[in-house]
């Protein structure tokens, strides 16, 4: 058993990163031209890394399964990006962002990484503005901010409800500039099928051209995995349809430890599921909780009447509404962190107060009527309409809300056919983000030498729960400002290596494995589609490994997932051929990996006998239903080593030391 060395630099936390940068080895510009780096994934992490490494002079090969790097799912992030700029003068600082993130993560993240993240956060905003990212501005022409859950300052920068899109397009622009120069060779519609190790080091990948089916060999001096999260193990999630764990899982199978797979974020404000034909879920940005109030009927009979379609929310008197977040958590109210808000919604729905009109009855209200009146009154005052009618105030307020959240409201209306300006939105939690991922050290290197992992695909910064608007921050921090330094230190040993040949036995063996698996799928001619198995896996995950987990449920899930996996390998039916575009074949490979990950995920959840952040075990909760963390026994990162079957995976522990923040029970009351 190897010991996990997180390689955290010595010294006070505020100086670690600076000292580290001052003492690493550099690669001179001429030598960079002889070094190749592969980047898998082109979202905020991969895109920013590819652009920056190419600018520095390395030869970059970037891969994405989409038809263009601009389509990576970072594009769908809505609300914003955090940075400790303190432009609002409301008491923000690097330390406070660091503190909020560690606390928000329920004290299960690595202090040094989080501090570095907070430290470089301000550079991100400067950088993006310089690239022409059109952030929201106030009338004085300066940047505007909003608030997100789990914090008491306004540090979130945004571009309406399309912040992820604007940041990703900024990244894509920077990439495009390097693609034009030939410093990035872009492989669109390519999927990484395996990693190739030579003498223990990551030296290349096997990729499949998704248009021609050709299996390609690509070599490099280092491989960067930036392939995003694995929320689609639940089948229904807010992830893109193609989002998958495969790149991370392939490196896991070749020696990279997989950390904290059970830390999953269930986002509180998503559009409820409509039925069995549903293919994915849609998020409504957390920014809506700045102005929307969450409630359910205070009387069960009202909730029943609503579910039966006999009553409308507007008919329920103010006194008969239960604003349960404001009631339970007066100091943070509707802006409690996501894990807390999600569980509270489930608690109310399970208790019979849900307002969903679908088969499940699961939904709560997110109501803007109070905000519309408040803003309307403000506008009436500004314009001197002191005797404005209620309708006039409503119209003025609607205008303000439209400017802030217009695209989100439009999205909601398109999906549900309800007008959220007139009636309360219905929302329910859904799988959104995975805090767990490939284990990395301070350098963002995995336990495979020369294989790095950045962005959502790694595990490092968010602990057991991520705060809103921090995913974009981490992706760009890793890609623009962290990896370019840390990878240089490693690559300085490779200046005399020369191009890695792709005709050696390691590449041959990897190609054969990939080819065999593809041939198997095409020739199996089973009786059930890939989706059939994916949906079954998703149901088990959601019911037993979702918002609430119990020992009994998890044990059942482990057995059930194993059984689905065995059946999958017997009965899966993949139509078509392997020499042309074949989306079913792509899905089959991804679902095969989800079926292994799912079991490890449940095992990790079973092993962690405490509740923390997104991981909630019913056995470990207070009488009031709050999570009970166990710092004495579980203040560690669970890093799993692959040994064949998920049941054989070996657990390694990275102890988490808190030197700058005191471990406390998280309270938002």
């Amino acid at each position: 058993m190897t010991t996990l060395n997180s390689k955290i630099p010595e010294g006070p936390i505020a100086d670690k990163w600076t000292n580290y940068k001052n003492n690493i080895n550099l690669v001179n510009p001429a030598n960079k031209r002889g070094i190749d780096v592969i980047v898998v994934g082109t979202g905020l992490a991969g895109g920013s890394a590819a652009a920056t490494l190419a600018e520095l002079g390395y030869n970059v090969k970037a891969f994405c399964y989409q038809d263009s790097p601009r389509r990576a799912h970072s594009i769908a992030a809505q609300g914003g990006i955090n940075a400790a700029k303190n432009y609002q003068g409301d008491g923000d600082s690097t330390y406070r962002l660091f503190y909020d993130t560690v606390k928000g993560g329920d004290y299960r993240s690595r202090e040094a990484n989080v501090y570095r993240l907070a430290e470089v956060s301000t550079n991100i905003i400067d950088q993006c503005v310089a690239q022409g990212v059109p952030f929201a501005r106030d009338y004085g022409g300066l940047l505007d901010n909003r608030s997100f859950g789990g914090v008491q300052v306004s540090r979130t920068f945004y571009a309406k409800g399309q912040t992820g899109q604007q940041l990703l397009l900024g990244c894509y622009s920077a990439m495009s500039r390097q693609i034009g120069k030939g410093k990035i060779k872009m492989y669109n519609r390519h999927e990484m099928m395996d990693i190739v190790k030579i003498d223990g080091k990551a030296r290349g990948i096997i990729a499949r051209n998704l248009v021609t089916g050709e299996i390609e060999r690509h070599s490099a001096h280092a491989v960067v995995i930036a392939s995003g999260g694995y929320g689609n193990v639940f089948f229904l999630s807010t992830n893109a349809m193609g989002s998958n764990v495969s790149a991370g899982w392939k490196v896991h199978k070749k020696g990279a430890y997989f950390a904290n797979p059970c830390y999953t974020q269930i986002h509180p404000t998503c559009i409820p599921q409509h039925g069995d034909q549903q293919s994915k879920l849609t998020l409504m940005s957390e920014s809506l909780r700045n102005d929307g109030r969450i409630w359910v009927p205070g009387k069960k009979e009202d909730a029943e009447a609503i579910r039966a379609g006999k009553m409308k929310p507007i008919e329920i008197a103010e006194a008969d509404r239960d604003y349960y977040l404001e009631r339970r958590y007066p100091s943070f109210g509707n802006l409690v962190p996501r894990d807390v808000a999600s569980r509270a919604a489930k608690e109310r729905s399970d208790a019979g107060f849900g307002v969903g009109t679908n088969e499940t009855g699961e939904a709560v209200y997110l109501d803007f009527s109070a905000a519309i009146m408040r803003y309307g009154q403000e506008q009436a005052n500004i314009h001197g309409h002191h005797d404005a009618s209620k309708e006039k105030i409503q119209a003025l307020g609607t205008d303000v809300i439209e400017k802030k959240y217009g695209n989100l409201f439009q999205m909601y209306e398109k999906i549900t056919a309800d007008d959220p300006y007139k009636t309360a939105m219905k929302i329910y939690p859904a799988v959104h983000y995975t805090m767990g991922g490939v284990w990395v050290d301070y350098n963002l290197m995995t336990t495979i030498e020369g294989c790095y992992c950045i962005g959502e695909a790694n595990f490092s910064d968010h602990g057991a729960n991520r705060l809103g608007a921090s995913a974009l921050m981490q992706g760009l921090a890793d890609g623009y400002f962290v990896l370019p330094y840390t990878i240089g230190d490693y690559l300085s040993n490779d200046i005399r290596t020369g191009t890695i040949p792709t005709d050696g036995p390691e590449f041959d063996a990897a190609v054969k494995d990939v080819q065999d698996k593809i041939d198997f799928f095409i020739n199996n001619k089973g009786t059930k589609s890939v989706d059939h198995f994916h949906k079954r896996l998703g149901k088990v995950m959601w019911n037993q490994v979702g918002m609430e987990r119990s020992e009994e449920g998890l044990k059942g899930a482990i057995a059930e997932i194993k059984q689905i996996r065995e059946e999958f390998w017997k009965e899966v039916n993949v139509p078509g051929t392997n020499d042309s575009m074949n989306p079913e074949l792509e899905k089959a490979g991804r679902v095969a990996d989800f079926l292994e990950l799912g079991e490890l995920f449940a095992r990790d959840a079973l092993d962690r006998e405490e509740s923390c952040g997104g991981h909630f075990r019913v056995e470990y909760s207070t009488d009031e239903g709050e999570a009970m963390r166990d710092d004495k026994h579980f203040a560690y990162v669970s890093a799993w080593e692959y040994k064949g079957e998920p049941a054989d995976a070996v657990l390694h522990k990275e102890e988490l030391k808190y030197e700058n923040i005191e471990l406390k029970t998280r309270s938002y009351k």
Partner: protein
Amino acid sequence: MSTAKGLNLTLKVWRQKNDKDKGQMETYQVSDISTDSSFLEMMDILNEQLINEGKDPVAFDHDCREGICGSCSMYINGQAHGPSREITTCQLHMREFKDGETIYIEPWRAKAFPVIKDLVVDRGAFDRIMASGGFVSVNTSGNTQDANSIPIPKADADKAFDAATCIGCGACVASCKNSSAMLFVSAKVSQFALLPQGKVEAAERVQNMVSQMDEEGFGNCSNTGACEVECPKGISLDNIARMNREYLSASVSANKQ
């Protein structure tokens, strides 16, 4: 209690094995489609049905399914992204259709967007136009000036944002009788021309991007405005006017070699 209803539909879908195949329309029946389903969920159901019948499912591009990645690209009943305004195909819901209706589903059709398979086309031309100048030439070192050091009038920032919301789906090209990419290119040119950070190299950018656009085989703009109508993000024709002004002024001042 749901108000959803089950629809029975006839689908006429473009099937084409690869870029060399001639391709043809095929007819399929689907039944009991919930009116709450999205159009692409209806396509999933069709594909599940085809797989179970031992047939090749219909290939189509899709990913985020929330109207932002720009992958989906179907021409439905003669309209890019189907009958509703300001949405992508993935945001189109079956409640827009009637029971018993026949729906025609085709790929984007443009010389610069060759069909790869069925409803999937190659939009690589857009990436190449972007690589010719769709950026601000600043390195990502983070050593730039403070983000608030240049105030930008809110109106300009908002207009730049509106232009920047283009998702690069190609509906503008597919809708245009000339297969022109002017709306796409002008949106990027405008975003940068409206911001102080982008103004520095505005003249060179517009010339390079227009020249690459022409090279890719897109047609000319004849101001019909179909692109604006079909654009899922409501990108305005004003951007084309702005690009034309930028291009003209760049050409007359021509300090480019």
